[in-house]
């Protein structure tokens, strides 16, 4: 129950295509995050799955049966919007009951489900409250409750945490995770906030320029990006090209042993995360370089290091690094990620 498949899906917003030929599968009970820059049209994609926007081409299937001709009212999918959009002329309980009323559910069953969901979303006792008397976080929770109470096969969340301040965001993040774990509803949520996606998702996908670049568990996207764009998105700053020579990658940063089977004959790019670079004071071992800029960022300091053939950015917990300082830079080979150079 709740297996979503997007098959060769193309969705347009006006004249531009926001996603093209997208293939994606979300498993039952999964919390899947679709990550992408703001304005990339993720909301439009979500609306297409919800039925509020017609896709230009392709198919959407839920549990094997196509959704394409079903209006949103008939799909077993509920979308929660970025703004809470609580009906101002109904109180909390009535808002939550809305979908149940539309389905003509027996009123005793309605009451039971509402009471249940109020408890689940930590809104006990607020049933009679008016909407304008709620705080932002409470409104968001009512919005979630209103969707969950319908027990849909698929839940769509559009940037659920964007409107909240930092404090609330933490609470809501935990709430969403707990709710999803408790109810086991397949959830697809879109966001532009990487940390959000990294923290909550079971699996995530990065959407850039209308294409899914990489799909997998958060750790994978973060530590094992498949290409430069993905790496850049997650904060990768150090890219250098190289070529293969019997089992070693030859780069301006040195010669590194690479695993067998690494693509041969194609130009390669290597990247290493700033925090993985070791910076040592003395110049024996490692690449010699000069710090030409520093930026104090709290627990870590960002260093711009100029080596002979290479510019590197490092993040180090060390203190006291200064401009002009001569250092030695060490790139642990196991922290290096190598992928084919794309355009």
């Amino acid at each position, binding site marked *: 129950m709740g297996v979503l498949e997007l098959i060769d899906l193309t969705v347009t917003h006006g004249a531009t295509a926001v996603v093209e030929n997208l293939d994606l599968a979300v498993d039952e009970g999964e919390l899947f995050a679709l990550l992408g820059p703001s304005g990339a049209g993720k909301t439009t994609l979500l609306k297409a799955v919800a*039925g509020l926007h017609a896709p230009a081409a392709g198919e959407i299937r839920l549990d094997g049966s196509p959704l394409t001709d079903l209006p949103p009212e008939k799909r077993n999918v509920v979308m929660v919007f970025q703004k809470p959009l609580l009906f*101002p002329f109904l109180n909390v309980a009535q808002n939550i009951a809305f979908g149940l009323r539309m389905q003509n559910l027996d009123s005793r069953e309605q009451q039971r489900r509402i009471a249940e969901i109020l408890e689940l979303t930590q809104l006990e006792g607020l049933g009679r409250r008016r909407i304008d008397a709620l705080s932002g976080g409470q409104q968001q929770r009512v919005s979630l409750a209103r969707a969950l109470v319908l027990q849909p096969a698929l839940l769509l969340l559009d940037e659920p945490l964007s409107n909240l301040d930092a404090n609330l965001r933490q609470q809501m993040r935990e709430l969403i995770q707990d709710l999803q774990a408790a109810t086991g509803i397949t959830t697809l949520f879109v966001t532009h906030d990487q940390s959000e996606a990294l923290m909550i998702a079971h699996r995530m996908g990065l959407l850039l320029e209308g294409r899914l670049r990489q799909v997998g568990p958060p750790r994978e996207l973060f530590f094992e990006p498949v290409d430069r764009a993905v790496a850049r998105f997650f904060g990768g700053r150090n890219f250098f090209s190289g070529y293969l020579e019997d089992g070693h990658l030859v780069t301006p940063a040195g010669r590194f042993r690479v695993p067998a089977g690494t693509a041969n004959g194609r130009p390669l790019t290597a990247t290493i995360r700033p925090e993985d670079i070791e910076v040592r004071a003395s110049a024996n071992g490692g690449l010699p370089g000069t710090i030409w800029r520093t930026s104090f960022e709290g627990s870590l300091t960002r260093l711009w290091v100029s080596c002979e053939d290479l510019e590197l950015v490092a993040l180090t917990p060390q203190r006291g690094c200064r401009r002009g300082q001569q250092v030695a830079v060490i790139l642990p080979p196991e922290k290096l990620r190598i992928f084919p150079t794309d355009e």
Partner: protein
Amino acid sequence: MLKIPDSPQHIRTRPIRSTRQIAGLLGPAVVCVGLLFGGGVLLALLQGLGYLPGAGMADLSLVHFQRIFSDPDFMRSLGLTFYVAGVSTILAAAASVVLALGLNALAARSRWIHFIFQIPLTVPHLVIAVAVMFMLAPAGLFSRAAQTIGLIAGPQQFPLMVNDAYGIGIMATYIWKEVPFITLMVLAVLHNSGREFLEVGRTLKAGPWQRFRHITLPTILPGLAAASLIVFAYTFGAFEVPYLLGRTHPLLLPVRAYKKYSDVDLMARPEGIATGLIIALVVVLSALLAQAAARAARRRGGRP
């Protein structure tokens, strides 16, 4: 129109530098309006209550009001005025809802339609009354067209629609003028919050009729009520249109008030003024209700 303007978020109002400063800025306007309007109402009250020092009556009494309320003609006028104002408002409101929904669905982006729709707002009522007279009179344009196609044999057969017992011409004038006003108010509400709430409704499994009944209607109701009450208040107290298109008996209340006031019999004057006060009371009550409805509208459908 009756709403207190709010400054947008990024502009903060300043605290006053001194009462004198504010008094200086507000003073002239407040004094002018206060003196003229306040004075006018006060004097009307005094005269309505019988105070007429020039004629030797220096006591306040309710005799004029008593005489008014015991006059069956007055009650007939009152009833007719409520009827004309009420029915034209209800019809205008109903037409406006349909029109607003239609415009919202079909022409939400068309600037031309919106512009054309604003024309009736600025046209004086009197002009429309004249036009209605030309169209609906027994020998008017519609009658001539009807005769030409053979529906009637002469002006006597054309149904009476001006200077008639049901105030049809009057109501037609009001409806033409007020439908755009109410429609634009309802459209404003629909524009602000309509689309998003409807999408929420769809994803929460509401069908088209359910969305109309449970989302659209509650959302527009306060704004609709406010606009309708304003319209009622205006049509209740309007003079020109019934003066031109109404019957001589029973008169609509504002016409009756003026007729009494300008009567040769000086004793009828205070009755005219008292009638005017009653009109003012009904109008003010309507306006207050409209304010309350407008406040409810802002709380409800204004900002999603």
